[in-house]
C-alpha cells in the first residue's frame, strides 16, 4: 500500500465508488453509509450549518484542547469536545454522520468546555444542535439512546414536570441503595404518607414533582404542539406520541367539564386565563 493510500480520504477527494466499497468501520474511521444515509447526512450538514445558532456558537478553533482537558465525558468515553468542534467546523457530511451515531450522546452538557474555550465557542451548545438534528431526523442511534425516556416524555406532556417520586423504583435505581429506593420500608409507612409529611401543599403527591394545575400543564402541551416538539417526539417514538396526544385530548375534555363545575367560582374570579382548545 502506498503512503498516499493510507492518508485520510478527506485529503484524497475520494470517489463515490470508493465510498460504497468502504468497510463498515475502516482505518480512516468513517462508517459505511447507504445511498439514503449519504443523502440524509448531506441534508443534515446543510441544516446544521444553516441553523441560526451555528454562527453564534462556532467561532474558530486553535486545537488547543483546553475544552477536552476539563471535560468529564472525555475521561470515560471515546469523546472529545475539541473533536466535536472540529466536526462542526469542517463541512464533511461523513464525519458529521459518524459523530452523530454515538459520540454526541456522551456529552454531559455541563458547559465546562464552553467556559474554558479561549475562542468563546459554545461547544456544549453546538453538540445540542447536533443532537436536535439527530432526533428531528429520527436516526436509529437517537431512537436507541432515548428508548428509556418514555416515562419522562409522558410526565412532561401530561403533568408538566419531568420527575415523580414514584419513579424511584428499586428495579431502575438499584445502585442508589435501599435508603433512596425503599424509603417507605425504611420508615414503615407508604410513600404517600411520607409525601404528606412535606410541609408544602403542592409537593404532597407521588405522581409528579409537584402538582401542576391542569390549566398550566395544558399550556405547556400547547407550546409543544406549536413549536414542533411533538413532531420531534414522533420521530423517536411514534406510538408514545399518539398515546400522549390522546391523553391530553381527554385532559382537555375534563378541563372543559371542570369549567362547568367551577362556573360560579370562576365567574367570581375575572382573571382566569383562557386556554385555547388547540
Amino acid at each position: 500500500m502506498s503512503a498516499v493510500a493510507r492518508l485520510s480520504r478527506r485529503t484524497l477527494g475520494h470517489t463515490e465508488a470508493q465510498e460504497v466499497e468502504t468497510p463498515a468501520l475502516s482505518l480512516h474511521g468513517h462508517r459505511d453509509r447507504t445511498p439514503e444515509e449519504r443523502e440524509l447526512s448531506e441534508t443534515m450538514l446543510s441544516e446544521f450549518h444553516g441553523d441560526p445558532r451555528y454562527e453564534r456558537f462556532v467561532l474558530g478553533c486553535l486545537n488547543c484542547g483546553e475544552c477536552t482537558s476539563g471535560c468529564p465525558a472525555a475521561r470515560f468515553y471515546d469523546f472529545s469536545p475539541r473533536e466535536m468542534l472540529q466536526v462542526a467546523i469542517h463541512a464533511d457530511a461523513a464525519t458529521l454522520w459518524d459523530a452523530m451515531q454515538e459520540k454526541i450522546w456522551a456529552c454531559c452538557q455541563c458547559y465546562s468546555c464552553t467556559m474554558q474555550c479561549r475562542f468563546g465557542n459554545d461547544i456544549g451548545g453546538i453538540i445540542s444542535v447536533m443532537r436536535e438534528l439527530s432526533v428531528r431526523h429520527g436516526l436509529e442511534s437517537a431512537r436507541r439512546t432515548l428508548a428509556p425516556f418514555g416515562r419522562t416524555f409522558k410526565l412532561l406532556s401530561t403533568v408538566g414536570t419531568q420527575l415523580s417520586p414514584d419513579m424511584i423504583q428499586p428495579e431502575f435505581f438499584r445502585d442508589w441503595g435501599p435508603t433512596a429506593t425503599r424509603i417507605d420500608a425504611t420508615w414503615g409507612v407508604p410513600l404517600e404518607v411520607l409525601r404528606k409529611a412535606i410541609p408544602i401543599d403542592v409537593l404532597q403527591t407521588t405522581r409528579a414533582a409537584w402538582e401542576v394545575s391542569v390549566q398550566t400543564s395544558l399550556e405547556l402541551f400547547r407550546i409543544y404542539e406549536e413549536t414542533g416538539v411533538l413532531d420531534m417526539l414522533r420521530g423517536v417514538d411514534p406510538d408514545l406520541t399518539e398515546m400522549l396526544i390522546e391523553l391530553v385530548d381527554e385532559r382537555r375534555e375534563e378541563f372543559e367539564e371542570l369549567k362547568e363545575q367551577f362556573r360560579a367560582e370562576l365567574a367570581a374570579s375575572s382573571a382566569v386565563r383562557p386556554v385555547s382548545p388547540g
Partner: protein
Amino acid sequence: MLDATDLRTLVAEQRAPTQGPGKKVVDVREEMERLEAKGEIIVHRIRPENRPVEVTNLLGRPKRIPTDRLWHHKSCGQCGNIPGYPSSLLWVMNETGRSYLNEPHQTSCTAWNYHGTATSNPVALAAVAARNFHRAYETDHFPLIHCGTSFGDYKEMRKLLVENEDVRHKVREILRKLGRELVLPEEIVHYSEWVHVMAPEIVARRVHDVSGIVAAVHEPCHYYKMVPEDAVYDRRFFGGQRPAPPSSIVMALGARVADYSTWYDCCGFGFRHILAEREFSRSFANLRKIRPMVEEAHADVAITSDTGCVTTLDKSQWIGRAHGFSYALPILSDIEFVALALGAHPYKIVQVHWHATSVEGLMTKMGIDWPTAKVEFQEYLRTLKEGGSPDYLYPPRHEIERYFAINKGPVLPEEPPRPGSPAVKTLTVKEGSG
C-alpha cells in the same frame, strides 16, 4: 500608548449594542430597555417592595437581588427526590419574614429533558421560559429560580429572546394563543444568590455552632458556566476568582471551606446519564468528586446549590462500596445546611431522610439532637397515616387552584406599555398567598 482610562473609553464606545438575528448584545439588560420602549416586550422590574440588594456579576456590573415578594420557580429534581431542599428555603424565608408565592401554576423549565434528550428546540424552551416569566409577572411576585439548570436555561432564553427577533416573534405569537404577553425579568435570580445576600440576617438567627465543620463546596456548572456573566462574584470570596455563592454562606455561618483539586469538575449528573447511563455518573462522582473531597479536603460535608449535583453526589455513594469507596460523605444544599444551623427540624423541615447518604453523623457534630427529632417525626408519620392533618409552611391552596391558574395580583394592560405609562394596574388579591 493607551492608558487604562483610554481603554475603558474605547471598550465603552465599542459596546454599542447590535440587534437582529444572530447578533450578540453586550448587556442584555440595556437592550431590554430599548425593546420595551419599542413595545416589543415588558420588563418585569425589581421594585422597592422586593427589597433588592446589589451585588456584582462576573464582569463587575451590578446585579440586583430581590429579597422579598418572590415567586418560587420550583425544581423537578428537588421536589421529586430532595423535598427538604425547597421546604428548607421556604422555612428560612418564613424565619426572616420574607413573603412569597408558591403555587401550582408553574411548569418545569423542561431543560433537564432538553439537555438529556434534545427533544425540544430553542423556540419551545424560550416559550416555556416566557410562559413562566409571565405567570410570575401577573402575580406581582419576582421569580426566584430554585434549580441551577433552570437558571442557566432561563439566562440563555432571555438572551436569545433579546438577541433574536425571529424567535421573539414566534414566542410572542404562542404566548398570545395562551392569553399571555412577552415579559422578561430585569434579572434572572438563582435562590443561592438570595441566600448570599441574606447572609447577615441568616447568621443572626444561627443556633448551632458550625465552626468545627469542614465543608467542601461543589459549584454547580449551570450556575456559572452557562451565560457566565450573570453569575455573582465577590472579591471577599476566593479573591473573586470563583463564584461567591454558595461558599459565602457556609463561611458566613462560621464553617471552614476547604479546597480540593477538582473543584472545577462537574458532578457527573449528565442529564441523560443520571437516568439511563449511571455507570458514568457514579464513576465520575466517586472518583473525581467524593474521593478528593474526603482525601484532600478532609470534609465533613459537601455543600452545593443545585438539584442534579445533590442528587448525583448523594445517591452515587452507596454503590461505591462495591469498589471500596466507603466515604459516606453527607451531601447537602446550602439552604439545607442553613436551615439545620438555624435550628429547623431535621426531619419535618429539612427532610434529611430523603438523602441516601446519612446526614446523622454531621448533625451530631453540629450539636443537633436528631434522635429526639427522629422519634417526633415517627410519631408525626403515625398521625398522618391515621388520617391526621399535615403541617404547612403557608396556607394550602384552594381546591379551584388544582385546575385553574387563578390570578392573584396585577394584570397586564390591554396595550403594551409606552414610556411614561404605568406598567400594571392592580386588582384585589383573590386567593390567599404565602
